[in-house]
């Protein structure tokens, strides 16, 4: 059987349709500018340093609806060595903001765990703002998989 040129083109179009179908039609995701603006607002324009804050997130999220994440900031939470707040952002969600934890002298430690939603594979960013205004950052890429079944 000889393939007409038309047949070949149609076959190719069919094959190309598959990756296209996997795009999320009609939805928009956070612009990088939104993420940058939120980080700047939170840090008062200060450039975040690495260190002090550890963000724990799974490498692969079994389901994007419920992804456990933890933050832990190395701080005595006493006197001048205090964490004011920790902000969590997701740079690939429709909107980047996730949660902001507020700590006090009564917190005992600047550590918290919660569960978040991730629309797709992306970076989760954790920013810690210390009482003295310094800002620290940690970032983890979380792969969000598409299950095979059960919708």
């Amino acid at each position, binding site marked *: 059987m000889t393939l007409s040129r*038309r*047949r070949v083109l*149609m*076959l*190719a*179009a*069919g*094959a190309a*349709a*598959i990756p296209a179908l996997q795009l999320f039609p009609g939805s928009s995701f956070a612009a990088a500018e939104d993420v940058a603006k939120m980080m700047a607002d939170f840090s008062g324009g200060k450039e975040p340093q690495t260190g002090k804050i550890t963000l724990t997130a*799974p490498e*692969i*999220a*079994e*389901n994007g*609806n*419920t*992804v*456990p994440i933890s933050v832990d900031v190395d701080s005595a939470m006493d006197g001048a060595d205090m964490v004011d707040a920790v902000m969590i952002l997701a740079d690939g969600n429709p909107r980047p903001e996730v949660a902001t934890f507020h700590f006090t002298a009564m917190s005992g430690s600047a550590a918290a765990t919660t569960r978040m939603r991730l629309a797709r594979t992306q970076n989760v960013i954790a920013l810690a703002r210390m009482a003295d205004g310094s800002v620290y950052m940690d970032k983890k890429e979380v792969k969000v*998989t*598409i*299950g*095979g*079944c*059960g*919708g």
Partner: protein
Amino acid sequence: MDRISLAAGTALCLLLTGLAVGKAFGDPVDDTLEIDGVPMIIRTAAPDGHPFDEVLSGWLFREAETRATQEDSFENPGMLAVERGAEIWETVDGTMGKSCASCHDDAAVSMKGVGAAYPKWDADAKRPINVELQIDKCRVENMGAEAYKFDDADQVALTAFVKHQSLGTPMSVDLSQGDLQAWWDKGKDLYYTRTGQLDFACASCHEASMGKYIRADHLSQGQVNGFPTYRFNTAGMVSLHNRFRGCIRDTRAEMPKAFSDELMALEVYVTWRGTGLSVETPAVRQ
């Protein structure tokens, strides 16, 4: 003519993708599960005549974070439904002014081990009866209340509560009751029958491809010991017949009605396939 080529191209692409993914195989993890100090039987020798040597809980096929969420009965969001069920247990409903507690008292005592022995034979209806239908029967006959609509939030919560009283107890169906054996036969037949546009049988995924990945889902043996289950997917409780229907929908087949003869036969058979596994309700799954 062109539509066929388009479809052929699409199918070719899907086939190639499917082949690439289908090759991946993952062993279930080697881990133990204890909930509130109760050891769970998550792997055990299969009963005679079972296609597998060992029956494995779906818990073993999930990622570490998912498994951890089930281990802690405080962190397990399914326990919210169990607590709701406990409330319903105490709530008077129906014309006879009774609650479940009026007859069954403390569920931790009266319902202990009960959920692990269902489905049973209902001599009145001459068909198998599961926990949901037993609750309905009690409500109608003993409380003068209405049967729940399928998947009513209260039905799911109360079923989860009752099943949870059997946490840890190994599942076992007594096939000698009534005609349960005949329903088991029918269920087995259904389990191995390919249906739907995707031409899958339950066995296609849960037996022939157990341990493989379907896209990113790690295929388990498709056991029922954890239902109603808290699923991350829907961030809510999922009942067994809801899941049966969902699986069948995903093979692009017509979905049988919940509690239909088909699904009751399937429940009898699939419960048997997990004989010996602890009731994990409310299990946590993806």
